[in-house]
């Protein structure tokens, strides 16, 4: 009796953990309301408001996750589209000279922000998955005095250090 109960609790716990862990962005359909979005995936980490009243809600799954979702809402507060932006499609839009704000709007919050010891740079990094399998790291280096993007680097994480994931 006791063991059955604890097993049931454990199972329930796991189910809750699982559903909480992967909020289902695929369940958000165009036309859904802002309330429905909040009910499905919770509050966004950040909200970008545009002049026309439309908004973009940002959901980074990092630092442990490798995805960041952007939910676009029209001025009527209905969902226009849901994008997973840590992918080649969006990363390839980065270019030299972009501001921090532009990068943040494109890819969302970085996993980590670092600094260069020697040349006054700020380095934003993300982890993402390419083709569903390859574990990648993205580094975007900004010149600190001007705030402009200087360099974009992408790396594949070698399997020999797979333990650090």
């Amino acid at each position: 009796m006791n063991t059955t109960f604890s097993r049931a609790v454990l199972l329930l716990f796991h189910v809750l953990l699982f559903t909480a862990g992967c909020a289902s962005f695929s369940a958000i359909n165009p036309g859904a309301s802002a309330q429905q979005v909040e009910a499905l995936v919770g509050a966004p980490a950040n909200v970008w408001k545009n002049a026309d009243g439309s908004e973009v809600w940002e959901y980074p799954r990092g630092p442990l996750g490798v995805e960041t979702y952007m939910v676009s809402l029209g001025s009527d507060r209905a969902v226009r589209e849901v994008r997973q932006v840590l992918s080649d499609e969006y990363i390839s839009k980065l270019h030299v000279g972009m501001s921090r704000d532009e990068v943040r709007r494109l890819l969302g919050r970085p996993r980590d922000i670092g600094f260069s010891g020697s040349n006054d740079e700020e380095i934003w990094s993300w982890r993402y998955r390419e083709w569903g399998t390859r574990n990648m790291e993205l580094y975007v280096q900004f010149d600190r005095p001007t705030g402009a993007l200087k360099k974009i680097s992408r790396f594949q994480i070698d399997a020999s250090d797979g333990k650090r994931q």
Partner: protein
Amino acid sequence: MIAAFHRAAAVLALAVLPAACANFSALSPGDSAQDVEARVGAPGAVWKNADGSEVWEYPQGFYAVQTFMVAFDPKHAVREVRQVLNEAYFSRIQPGMSREDVRRLIGKPREIWYYPARDEETWTWRYYDINYKFFNVLFDRSGGTVRTTLRLDEVLLPNGDRGRH
């Protein structure tokens, strides 16, 4: 006339070539410190040991994938020459080692980045092992000890840029 010009160009090329790539394979055990300086120039750093032996460090530059260490015995004769940017040396780096331990083993890093949020300092070396790769040593910044290591594969970007310059 043109042949003479070509001959002159060939002689010039021969003169330039050895200067451009210092020839560490020309060093032999038993060579004196003077021989070494004459062949490969002054070292980037010198490590002195208690017994009078020394290690001279020759990083080959920011884009290079080799760093040479010339070890001298207490009588200042060459004992060995080793190229340290490879797996044989990387695999000796263990959690808990100090910055100096790492520096003495594989030489000066090309870049040092730090991440305040994780109190982490990352040292990076470029190397070649089938592909161009980056070897990273992640230190606990305030403790000054190795946390872990990370190997990243350089990825060729679509615009022809390499992952990290």
